[in-house]
């Protein structure tokens, strides 16, 4: 798709065109599913488990059913449907057993939210509490409690995943390249360490919400705050054995997704309630507390890396073991494991590589897709490890990275060759290093250290990601010309705030040569009228939907030219056009306005030709292949986006308190489509990355209760948490098959912020951190060689976050309600 465009000839691509969807959002008139009310609509509420693992002995719904205004009550035993994106391991409501704190056990639909809540309070559940397995490393022991004893009988996608029955391993992804043992034998140094991340929440500002109407003859309409309307439809129909044509999924404005809304979540339960209530529409909106435990989170990770390096600092061999704590259900986690497995080394060339990546079940809220799809989590390990290796062998960390980074000619873990148009990670690294003055302190910085007593540190981290998606992922665009010569574009890609609506309008306006004011890209999605798009995830929207739009533009122009050539009595080859007319190149006054042929042309005598002009473009990922299940070799990557962050931090050497003074972020984006939109993505992602680095993380007690299910103790960055200075840098090595040379960068700004910070803090005060988040206390402990604290499961009082029983009594009900 890439055309060698001189930037001066581009009208819209490369310009900070204003967003097309702000009028409604600025005035409070954008409709989100949260705002929707339908005639006769019922309100749903969910009864949730206060236990991490328990047998459901009895569920008494009699009092709930008897409450006036209650129209449906469901328990797990009422429903015989199972769900799962990749492994079908979940019931719509817990059946027989609850597997995590906050799991839905029963649900109610009533004429008002108040009645629904009251009804839920009237449901009595008798549990037999059982010992949960909470730590994923414990879950791997041979005598561990099994979260899914029947794992062997579950349906799953065999081409991609390998569950191990009779264990807690939902998936085992393997990659074998070369001979690691020989590599280690040859190495001058072998460095091995383990790195940890806790679970975190996406925290979209709009919590999950769905309205479903199960109409007559099984015609179902779903309104959902979702990222992937076609996936909702597909999975829904698979679960309920319905033809695709029976189910319509509508997605209006979405208040943020970040991967948490990528799959199917509340829709099946709400649908069952609607069906039970005689087909009335039912709405369920998660409370913020439910968002933290009923809805899924991001898996935790323990990542063990062993690297063998030659005397000159080249990596010869690397063994990588990932232990993903996926919680109670596999959901997306098995694919996160797979996608991380094939990218596990980060942007470095590893001649001999061995990866074992495990998705491990535990009795905790489960992991789903999250921005970065595993890459935020494992890059913490990779980039802290590269730092460790460099220091161990006495080499400057920047030089070590330079020596091992992927460059044209390198072979990736899966056997793919990097070319001159894949992207340039070293250019990103050099740019951020320059920006922060890496490796030295300026005179001003030294003076500041003396004046404040705080130490200034600088750190760098690199990143890479390719879209994690099926090798035959596809999308389409339909461009319809309106009677006034403007165009309306339908695409299945969802606007979740990332600005796809605007960027694609720019691409269409550019390719058509039309004024952007005449290009309307639909914001609302409807599976009934929009063309298929796989999912709005994976940073593939711009590249794939952009290409589909270009193909649709070309189709539209061809059809227009065909009609125009008749009318103008000229060869198609002699035609050209601008935003107003189609004309004959060598006789420009012989022209016809677009609006005259937009919906059919009438000759002066009345005869009609042509018809409505509609352009269609379909685009499928090309040349990708499945990964061999034993060796992990194949070509999974549509495109690679590389990047780097450089961080300057300032640390109090006594207390461990620190502040981030500057973040410089650089990405090889191929071609900037909209600078302001891109900056918004970079800064937004980087701040989300800082959140995950500094303060986010689930904390459980040793019975598996989530101790921080709200904003009180699950903090996210506010406006005051910005670094003092932010620099956003782009490299543009064209993606030849990308629209105008662009490649995706939606997830990447979040990746590697944490290790850049960890590296900076280490450079400041020699605190060597191997776990996230990096709280002040963690820095203090690392500086003073104190035992690190458990960040996410409190096991023992010694050096842990465990509640002092005398001062804090945990009451399960208080934590879960409302």
């Amino acid at each position: 798709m890439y055309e060698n465009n001189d930037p001066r000839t581009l009208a819209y691509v490369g310009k900070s065109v204003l967003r097309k969807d702000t009028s409604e959002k600025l005035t409070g008139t954008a409709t989100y599913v949260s705002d929707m009310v339908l005639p006769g609509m019922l309100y749903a509420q969910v009864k949730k488990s206060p236990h991490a693992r328990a047998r459901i002995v009895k569920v008494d719904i009699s009092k709930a059913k008897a409450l006036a205004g209650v129209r449906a009550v469901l328990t797990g035993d009422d429903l015989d449907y199972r769900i799962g994106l990749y492994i079908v391991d979940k019931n719509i409501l817990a059946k027989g057993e609850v597997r995590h704190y906050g799991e839905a056990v029963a649900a109610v639909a009533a004429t008002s939210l108040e009645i629904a809540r009251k009804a839920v309070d009237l449901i009595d559940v008798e549990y037999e509490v059982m010992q949960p397995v909470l730590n994923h490393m414990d879950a791997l022991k041979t005598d561990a409690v099994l979260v899914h004893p029947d794992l062997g009988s579950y349906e799953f996608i065999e081409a991609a995943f390998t569950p191990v029955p009779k264990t807690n391993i939902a998936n085992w992804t393997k990659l074998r390249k070369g001979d690691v043992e020989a590599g280690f034998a040859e190495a001058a140094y072998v460095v091995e360490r383990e790195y940890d991340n806790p679970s975190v929440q996406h925290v979209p500002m709009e919590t999950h919400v769905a309205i479903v109407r199960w109409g007559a003859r099984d015609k179902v309409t779903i309104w959902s705050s979702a990222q992937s309307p076609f996936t909702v439809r597909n999975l829904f129909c698979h679960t309920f054995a319905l033809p695709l044509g029976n189910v319509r999924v509508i997605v209006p404005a979405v208040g943020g997704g970040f991967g948490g809304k990528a799959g199917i979540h509340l829709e099946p339960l709400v649908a069952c309630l609607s069906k039970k209530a005689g087909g009335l529409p039912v709405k369920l909106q998660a409370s913020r507390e439910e968002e933290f435990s009923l809805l899924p989170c991001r898996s935790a990770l323990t990542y063990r890396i062993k690297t063998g390096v030659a005397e000159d600092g080249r990596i010869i061999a690397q063994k990588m073991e990932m232990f993903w704590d996926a919680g109670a259900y596999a959901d997306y986690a098995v694919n996160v494991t797979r996608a991380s497995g094939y990218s596990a080394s980060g942007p470095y060339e590893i001649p001999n590589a061995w990866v074992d990546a495990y998705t491990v079940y535990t009795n905790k809220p489960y992991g789903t897709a999250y921005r970065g799809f595993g890459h935020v989590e494992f890059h913490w390990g990779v980039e802290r490890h590269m730092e460790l290796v460099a220091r161990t062998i006495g080499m400057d960390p920047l030089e070590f990275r330079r020596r091992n980074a992927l460059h044209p000619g390198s072979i990736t873990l899966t056997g793919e060759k990097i070319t001159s148009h894949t992207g340039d990670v070293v250019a990103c690294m050099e740019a951020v290093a320059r920006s922060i003055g890496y490796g030295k302190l300026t005179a001003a910085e030294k003076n500041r250290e003396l004046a404040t007593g705080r130490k200034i540190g600088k750190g760098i981290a690199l990143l890479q990601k390719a879209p994690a998606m099926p090798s035959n992922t596809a999308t389409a665009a339909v461009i319809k010309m309106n009677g006034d010569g403007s165009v309306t574009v339908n695409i299945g890609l969802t606007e979740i705030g990332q600005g796809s609506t605007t960027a694609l309008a720019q691409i269409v306006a550019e390719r058509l040569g039309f004024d952007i004011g005449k290009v309307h890209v639909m914001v609302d999605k409807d599976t009934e009228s929009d063309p298929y798009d796989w999912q709005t995830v994976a940073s593939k929207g711009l590249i794939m939907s952009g290409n589909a739009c270009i193909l649709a533009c070309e189709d539209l122009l061809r059809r227009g030219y065909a009609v125009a050539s008749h009318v103008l009595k000229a060869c198609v080859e002699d035609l050209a056009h601008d935003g107003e007319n189609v004309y004959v190149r060598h006789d420009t006054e012989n022209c016809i306005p677009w609006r005259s042929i937009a919906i059919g042309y009438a000759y002066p005598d009345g005869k009609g030709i042509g018809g409505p002009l509609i352009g269609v473009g379909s685009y499928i990922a090309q040349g990708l292949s499945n990964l061999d299940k034993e060796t992990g070799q194949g070509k999974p990557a549509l495109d690679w986006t590389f990047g780097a962050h450089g961080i300057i931090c300032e640390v109090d050497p006594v207390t461990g308190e620190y502040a981030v003074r500057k973040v410089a972020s650089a990405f090889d984006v191929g071609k900037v489509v909209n600078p302001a939109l891109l900056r918004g993505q970079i800064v937004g992602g980087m701040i989300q990355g800082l959140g995950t680095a500094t303060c986010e993380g689930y904390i459980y007690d040793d019975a598996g209760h989530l101790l921080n299910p709200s904003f009180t103790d699950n903090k996210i960055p506010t406006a005051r948490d910005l670094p003092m200075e932010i620099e956003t840098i782009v490299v543009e090595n064209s993606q030849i098959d990308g629209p105008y040379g662009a490649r995706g960068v939606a997830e990447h700004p979040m990746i590697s912020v944490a290790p850049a910070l960890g590296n900076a803090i280490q450079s400041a005060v020699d605190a060597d951190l191997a776990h996230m988040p990096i709280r002040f206390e963690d820095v203090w402990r690392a500086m003073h060689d104190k035992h690190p604290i458990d960040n996410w499961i409190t096991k023992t009082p010694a050096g842990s976050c465990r509640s002092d029983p005398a001062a804090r009594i945990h009451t399960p009900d208080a934590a879960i309600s409302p």
Partner: protein
Amino acid sequence: MRHQFSYTAPTELTDLLTLLETVGPGARLLAGGTDLLVNIRNGLVKPNTVVDVKRIPEAHAIMSDNTKGLRIGWAVTINDILRNSDIASSYQLLQTCAHDLASYQVRNRATVVGNIVNASPCSDMAPALLCLDASVEIASSKAYRTVPVRQFFTGVKRTVLKPDEMVIGITIPIQSKGAKGKYRKLKRIQGHDLGIIGVAVARVGDSLRIAVSSAAPTPVATGALPLDITDSEALAAVDALISPISDVRCTKEYRRFMVSEFTRRLLAEVRS
């Protein structure tokens, strides 16, 4: 809100006190609501009656007097404190602590009296009030009493208030006028957060006071300390007052260390 309750908004203090006498334990007073409404929402408190105390004009009064000191009415908000020029010039520590309390929107509603009646160990206003030797004016329909703020808190979220009593004012004595102090609150982020620990150090007249929040079941404070007290004596005095716990925010070791370190640093700042 799940829980249903009746609501009333008296316009005279005498009516309010009489109401308390009759409704008593089933009633909760609503000032800013930033604690009460959260607690009702979370099912921790289930009052029969919510009594809005904001419709009585004298509730909002801040009075600064050259003989009597400062008096803060029971519905004075945190932002009211921050906007008051008398407090800025003469009782600055109140503003220093107020500034760190929650977010702007919360400060428009949260009240000083509400903050101490809620009696969280993490109270941001208590350190200032303790350093400034504040007194709490308590009234019922039958009686009126004054309790020094250092005797007001009896445990985690517990005070000396009886069910038919309410706080109608906080007074700061004229001796504390002109006191200068500093407050440092340790948070997990730069943005609004509960205190992990909070230390206030103030010079009041010719003595020092040190108060600490989030390190004991209640906010705690030393008595008047001599200006020339050594650092180690001051730290020992503070250390003896605190009994930090480990919870999801912090371990007790770090709390104890940071109380000590903040005290040391604030002493240096206040003394210089």
